[in-house]
C-alpha cells in the first residue's frame, strides 16, 4: 500500500510556514532525556537537530581520578540496559594490557552472561519499539521474560540492573549452583514468547505498514556514519565483531551473523533493523546452549587471578566488543600509575544517533518516532 515515499509535492504557490516543534527532554518516546528540535512542514519532517547532553555525567573526567577497578561501576551506568556487555571490552582490554590470561571457565561464564544480557537488551528494544507504534501489550509480555533473566543476574551478582560482576582478571562471585538449569529455562521461555510476539506484533499488518519503507539507511551511508550493530546489519552489511575480530572464545562457537535481507519493504528500513534484533535473540539462545553443553561442572576460584593492585604498564589500547547496540570501544591510555591517564568510551548509541537527521528527512512525525525507536539508543551511553 505505501510505495517508496517520494515527497516532491511542489508547495510553490502555497505559502506554508515551517513549524519548529521541540520534542523536549520529557517526551514519552525519546527513550530518555533527548531533545529533538524538529522542523515540520505540516506533518512532514524537513529537518531534525538532536540536542544531547542532558545526562552528561562526566564519566571520562571521573575516570581520570579513580583507580582501574573503581571505574567498572561507572561503566555499568553508561549503557544501563546491557551492563554486563559494557564491562566486557574494558575488562578484556585491561587483561590484554596487563598480560593476564583468564581460564576457560571464566571466559565461558562471561560469554554466557554477555549473551543473556544481549537477549535482555533486545527484549527491551523490541518492547519499546512496539510501544512507540502504540502496541502496549508486547511490552508487558517481553518484560515478563526479562524478569527471569534479571533474577539469574541477581543470583550471580546481587544487582538487578547494574552488576559490577566482571572484574579485571576474574569475576566477583562464582555462578549460582542452579546456573545451567536456569539458563535452559530462560532459553525455552524466551523462544516461546518470541514466537508469540512474532505473531502479535511483528507479523501484525498495521505494524508492518508502520515500519516498512521508513527510515531507509543505505549500507554505504551507514558505514560512512560509523554506525554499528543491528542498525548496520539491518542495512545488509555482514560486520560483527564477534566474527571479524573474535575475543573470548567466540571463534570456537558456531552461530551465524543475522543480516537484514529486506524481505518486507526495502533493505535497511525500520522493519529490517527490528527483525535483526528478533533473530539475534535466537542466535544468542544457540550460543548459550552450546556454552551450557560444554560447561565444566567443578567450580573454580574465580578471584584467583585478580591482582591486588591494578598497575598496568605504560601504554595504550583500544579494546572493543560487540555490544547489543553495536561496537563499544574503550581507548585506555595508562601512564604506569594507579589512575588511568585517559579513558575514552566510544559509545555506540552516540554514533548511531548521529545518523538520525540523515535518514528522517521527508517522513512524518510518527515515522520519526519509529526511526528513533529502531535505532535503539540509550541516553546514558550517548552523554556518558
Amino acid at each position, binding site marked *: 500500500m505505501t510505495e517508496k515515499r517520494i515527497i516532491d509535492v511542489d508547495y510553490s504557490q502555497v505559502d506554508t510556514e515551517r513549524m519548529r516543534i521541540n520534542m523536549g527532554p*520529557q517526551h514519552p518516546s525519546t527513550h530518555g532525556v533527548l531533545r529533538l528540535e524538529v522542523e515540520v512542514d505540516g506533518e512532514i519532517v524537513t529537518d531534525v537537530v538532536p540536542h544531547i547532553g542532558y545526562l552528561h555525567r562526566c564519566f571520562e573526567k571521573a575516570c581520570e581520578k579513580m583507580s582501574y577497578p573503581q571505574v567498572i561501576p561507572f561503566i555499568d551506568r553508561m549503557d544501563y540496559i546491557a551492563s554486563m556487555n559494557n564491562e566486557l571490552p574494558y575488562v578484556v582490554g585491561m587483561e590484554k594490557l596487563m598480560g593476564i590470561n583468564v581460564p576457560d571457565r571464566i571466559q565461558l561464564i562471561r560469554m554466557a552472561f554477555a549473551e543473556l544480557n544481549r537477549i535482555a537488551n533486545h527484549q527491551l528494544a523490541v518492547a519499546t519499539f512496539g510501544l512507540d507504534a502504540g502496541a502496549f501489550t508486547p511490552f508487558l509480555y517481553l*518484560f515478563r521474560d526479562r524478569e527471569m533473566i534479571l533474577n539469574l543476574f541477581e543470583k550471580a551478582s546481587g544487582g538487578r540492573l547494574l552488576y559490577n560482576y566482571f572484574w579485571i582478571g576474574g569475576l566477583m562471585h562464582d555462578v549460582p549452583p542452579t546456573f545451567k538449569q536456569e539458563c535452559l529455562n530462560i532459553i525455552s521461555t524466551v523462544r516461546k514468547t518470541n514466537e508469540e510476539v512474532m505473531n502479535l506484533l511483528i507479523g501484525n499488518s498495521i505494524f508492518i505498514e508502520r515500519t516498512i519503507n521508513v527510515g531507509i539507511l543505505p549500507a554505504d551511508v551507514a558505514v560512512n556514519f560509523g554506525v554499528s550493530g543491528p542498525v548496520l546489519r539491518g542495512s545488509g552489511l555482514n560486520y560483527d565483531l564477534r566474527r571479524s575480530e573474535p575475543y573470548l572464545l567466540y571463534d570456537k562457537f558456531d552461530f551465524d551473523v543475522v543480516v537484514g535481507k529486506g524481505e518486507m519493504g526495502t533493505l535497511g528500513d525500520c522493519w529490517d533493523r527490528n527483525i535483526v534484533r528478533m533473530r539475534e535473540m535466537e542466535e544468542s539462545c544457540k550460543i548459550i546452549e552450546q556454552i551450557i553443553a560444554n560447561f565444566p561442572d567443578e567450580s573454580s576460584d574465580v578471584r584467583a587471578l585478580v591482582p591486588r593492585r591494578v598497575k598496568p604498564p605504560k601504554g595504550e589500547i583500544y579494546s572493543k566488543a560487540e555490544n547489543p547496540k553495536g561496537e563499544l570501544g574503550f581507548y585506555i591510555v595508562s601512564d604506569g600509575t594507579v589512575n588511568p591517564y585517559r579513558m575514552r568510551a566510544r559509545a555506540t548509541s552516540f554514533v548511531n544517533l548521529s545518523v538520525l537527521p540523515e535518514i528522517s528527512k521527508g517522513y512524518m512525525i510518527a515515522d520519526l518516532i519509529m526511526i528513533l525507536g529502531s535505532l535503539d539508543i540509550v541516553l546514558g551511553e550517548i552523554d556518558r
Partner: protein
Amino acid sequence: MGLLNRLDDPIQGDGIILGTVEDLLNWGRSKSDWYLQFGLACCAIEFMALNAAHFDMMRFGAIPRTSPRQADFIIVSGTVTLKMADRIKTLYEQMSEPRYVMSMGSCANTGGPYWEHGYHVVKGVDRLIPVDVYVPGCPPRPEAFFEGLVKLQKMISTQAIFRKREKMSAEDLAALELRNKKIQEYNERAAQENIEFTNAKHVGYSRYSLDFLNKGEQS
C-alpha cells in the same frame, strides 16, 4: 469497610461532616495518583520494570500520564544534570496544584556515585524542587520503590484540609511546617531570581538562532 476508617477514630475524626468529607477527598487523592511518565537514567529502566506485569504499579492506582498538566506526582528517576535542571523546574511548575515529588534513586537524592567528580551533575533534586519522598538505592529495588509509593499515599491521606491542624501529632505538625517552609523558601528564590531562572530563557539553542554565539543577549 476501610474506606472511612478515620470516622471511628476519636482524635483525628473532626466531627461527622468535616472529618468525613476531608477523608473522602484525601482517599480519592491518595488512591488514584497519576504520575508523569518521565525517566532520566538507569532508574527509568527499573521504573519500566515497575509498570510491567511482574511488579504491577497500577495495583496502587498509579496510571502513567504523558502531560504534566494531568499528573499528580512526578517521579524523578535518575541523575539530574545542570542542563536538565531548568527543564525539571519548568515541568514541576506546569503540574497542577496538589502535586507531590518522589525522588527515586541516590542520584536524585544526593547526586549518587557522581557526588565527587560530577561537575555537570546537580547534587540532589531537592536543590531544585521540594521533594516529598526519597527512595534510596542505585537503582532502588521495586519493593523499595513501592514502600516509597505507599509512604507517599499515606502522607497524602493524612494531609490536613480543614481545621485538622490543631489535632495533628507534634511530629506530623513539624513535618508539615518543614514542607511548607521549603515550598515558601523555594517560591521566594524563584521569584527573587525570576529573570535568571524560571522562564524558558535557556530553552536551548539551535543552528537557526545563531545569536546564542554572542554571549550578550540570548534568544
